[in-house]
């Protein structure tokens, strides 16, 4: 096929791509773009369910002594909200972006192991379905997403009908999705190491790819700890293995250590690709290169490294030795330093720029401010005695929603508004996007900022209802009302995604003037990704191209250094 007519051949929208029209092409696909889209779409459906569960929770908590839901139901709802958001919505959504964009951003044809890529997706889908299938048995896991032993043992997990089959569905479902995640992580790592064009040096890799790769390292190292813990739990339940049974010499703290050895790297797994998205979007909408590229990369490595040394800060109230507390308090406060580097570098990227306030950029700006709040309340918890006071309370709920919702979800929103045109060939509606943005900013901060005070007022987390103590009724009423505003924001987002697919303005190849390689191909990209890759001299190959074209006045791609793929 000749290179010249590639632009004229391109489809206007993803709906018109011939290869994508049959269902079989999706079911049997090993194309990273299709798999990425399936990852993202599936995770969006789970996100919708997770948001709906959150609405149910806030409705139950709207007033004290509210008995709309029974504790059985509420406990299942909050457990599934956490499980869904962490394992089935946010992580796979980020994975979807990683799978879709990593090859495109480094100029590769696909990932290294396309079949394994497909297998990983299908494992994730099947795992998710298994976990949700337990709703049909009437007995979903109801011990929280962290599923502390011995509440999950056969003795304590039964209700009056069943012997806690929900725990088993949860274990097997998570083992499947976990196996899938590890496969994808290996795939991303090998792709980045192996499939870069020769002139894509390590110092020229886009930050999204850097952060995704480090994220992949975290996945490869952290998820096996969870899988091991899940296997131990399964053996406890079915083979009487007694890992967590105190009366037989086991120890429930073993579960906590294993779970959080996975769980703390996991929270960085849930944010690093988001950092990557922010690091791509801010430069483009500020019309400047990212500030402190080397420091950003090094800070990501530092976060990845430290993330394996902080897990016990989830266990400051378990009564461990003071020396252990010192070590983990120190590593935890240290992680604030590389995170601070990132925040300041993003601000420095905006500094002196020419900032346009498209929806993607708005989400980035709100992200910086909200994530700073989440980071600072994290430092509050790193102060061990303060953690003793505030852990397990609504202060913690507020803290991690500032990092995961005000943080990760906002980065993902920026990612959607930035990349939707590339994936689908259509623009998302900007007007609707801005309404969504303001609803989400107001709804999110209204819901969660005030929950810090619920924690200070003495409200523990994971209660289906609470007594009418001073301030709690007011705080929860306000929080629930804003939660509906936030829910409306999410709803507009889903509506925008669907109608833009049909009615959105057709997108050209590079609607935002981006500089990384994914913008050097058509929207949506052809099955083989690139007809030709521009030379890569810096982290902004398309900027270099623009400059050389300005100088030479030539419209064509320079022939030297360009590579046919």
């Amino acid at each position: 096929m000749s290179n010249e007519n590639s632009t004229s051949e391109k489809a206007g929208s993803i709906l018109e791509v011939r290869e994508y029209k049959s269902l079989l092409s999706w079911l049997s696909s090993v194309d990273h773009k299709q798999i990425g889209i399936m990852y993202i779409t599936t995770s969006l459906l789970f996100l919708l369910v997770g948001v709906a569960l959150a609405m149910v929770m806030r409705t139950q908590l709207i007033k004290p002594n509210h008995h709309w839901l029974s504790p059985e139901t509420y406990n299942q709802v909050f457990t599934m909200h956490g499980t869904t958001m962490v394992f089935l919505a946010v992580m796979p959504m980020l994975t979807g972006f990683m799978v879709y964009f990593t090859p495109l951003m480094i100029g590769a044809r696909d990932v290294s192991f396309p079949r394994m890529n497909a297998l990983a997706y299908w494992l994730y889908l099947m795992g998710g379905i298994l976990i949700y299938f337990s709703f049909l048995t009437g007995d979903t896991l109801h011990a929280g997403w962290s599923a502390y032993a011995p509440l999950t043992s056969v003795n304590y997990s039964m209700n009056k009908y069943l012997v806690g089959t929900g725990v088993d569905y949860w274990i097997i479902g998570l083992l499947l999705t976990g196996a899938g995640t590890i496969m994808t992580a290996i795939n991303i790592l090998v792709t980045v190491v192996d499939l870069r064009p020769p002139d894509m040096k390590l110092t020229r890799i886009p930050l999204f790819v850097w952060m995704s790769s480090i994220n992949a390292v975290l996945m490869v190292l952290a998820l096996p700890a969870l899988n091991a813990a899940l296997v131990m739990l399964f053996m406890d339940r079915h083979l009487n293995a007694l890992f967590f049974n105190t009366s037989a010499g086991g120890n429930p703290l073993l579960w906590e250590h294993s779970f959080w050895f996975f769980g703390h790297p996991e929270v960085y797994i849930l944010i690093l690709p988001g950092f990557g998205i922010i690091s791509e979007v801010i430069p483009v909408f500020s019309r400047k290169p990212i500030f402190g590229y080397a420091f950003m990369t090094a800070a990501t490595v530092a976060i990845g490294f430290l993330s394996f040394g902080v897990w016990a800060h989830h266990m400051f109230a378990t009564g461990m030795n003071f020396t252990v507390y010192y070590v983990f308090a120190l590593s935890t406060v240290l992680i604030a330093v590389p995170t601070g580097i990132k925040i300041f570098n993003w601000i420095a990227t905006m500094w002196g720029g020419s900032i346009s306030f498209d929806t993607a950029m708005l989400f980035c700006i709100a992200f910086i401010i909200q994530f700073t709040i989440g980071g600072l309340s994290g430092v509050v918890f790193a102060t061990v005695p303060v953690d003793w006071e505030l852990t397990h309370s609504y202060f913690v709920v507020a803290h991690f929603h500032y990092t995961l919702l005000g943080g990760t979800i906002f980065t993902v929103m920026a990612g959607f508004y930035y990349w939707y045109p590339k994936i689908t060939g259509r623009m998302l509606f900007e007007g609707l996007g801005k309404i969504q943005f303001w609803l989400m900013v107001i709804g999110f901060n209204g819901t969660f900022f005030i929950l810090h005070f619920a924690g200070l007022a003495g409200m523990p987390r994971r209660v289906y209802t609470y007594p009418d103590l001073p301030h709690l009724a007011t705080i929860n009423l306000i929080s629930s009302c804003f939660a509906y505003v936030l829910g409306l924001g999410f709803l507009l987002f889903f509506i925008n995604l669907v109608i833009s697919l049909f009615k959105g303005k057709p997108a050209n190849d590079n609607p935002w003037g981006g500089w990384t390689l994914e913008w050097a191909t058509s929207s949506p990209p052809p099955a083989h990704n690139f007809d030709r890759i521009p030379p890569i001299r810096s982290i902004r190959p398309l900027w270099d191209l623009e400059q050389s074209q300005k100088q030479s006045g030539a419209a064509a791609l320079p022939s030297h250094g360009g590579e046919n793929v």
Partner: protein
Amino acid sequence: MDKFTSVLTPATKEASYILSSFYIVLGVSVIIFVIVAGLVVYATIRFRRRSGREAKQFSENFWLEVLWISIPLLIVAGLFMVAVRTMSLVNPPTLGDTPDLTVVAHQWWWELHYPRSGVTAANEIHLPVGKHLLLKFESADVIHGFWVPAFGQKIDVIPGHPNTMWLTITRPGRYLGTCSSFCGLGHADMRIQVFAESPEEFKAWLAHERQPALPPRTVEEKKGVQVFREKNCINCHSIAGLATKGREAPDLTHVGSRTTLAAGTLPNTSENLAKWLRNPQAVKKGTRMPDTGLTADQIKYLTTYLEGLK
């Protein structure tokens, strides 16, 4: 009496130490937040897109990076020192001291032992003001958490892993708390009340608690004892002077003198006790107390007897 429930109204020395370190961290955080948010807002306004102005293409400054690495390092080092200092103030080593109170958490109530006086009680804790008290925590089943917000720290109550906590209560009053670690169906209904009293009042309370249960006086109360024995209450509950084998459920020796029933779920009145006996699951979902199938008369007798156990 006042009901202090908030972290911001400390009632122990330890809580005051913790609260002051909270305010230090909060102050530092607010300053950092104002700086970061100020820079973001300034940048978005000052550098918004305007015609005739191009973005400057600078992208690195080594000394700037060094600046925003070293200043946060100094700040977190300072905060770490605050943490270390407060930790040893709040929880000095226990050196094998006998605890003043041992709390055993059950699904979903609190068993209380005062080892120095041999008193056993449930759910409503009495403690003296002004003494440096050592509390010990054990769990009979799953992981629970002991949290009285006005007392500062909370502690996980873990099976096979006893924990301790020091307290010096500074103000008398009634303090509410709750189980803080999710422990199953009844988690939200596993509440704590602490009555902080003057040492004399506390001593009097201990003396009262040490007495065996009052013997039944009226016919109704005697019938109540019979119900207690025959309807299997006796297998799980103890009443000193009557039956002391049951350890699975709260000690009822002085149940009539408590202010609430079912770990803070209901105020302790005859009507509520009758309601509880009639259908425990309707009052507190998940409770281990079985439906004993009592008739209306049996409930009346039992209620009269138990409410008389002052």
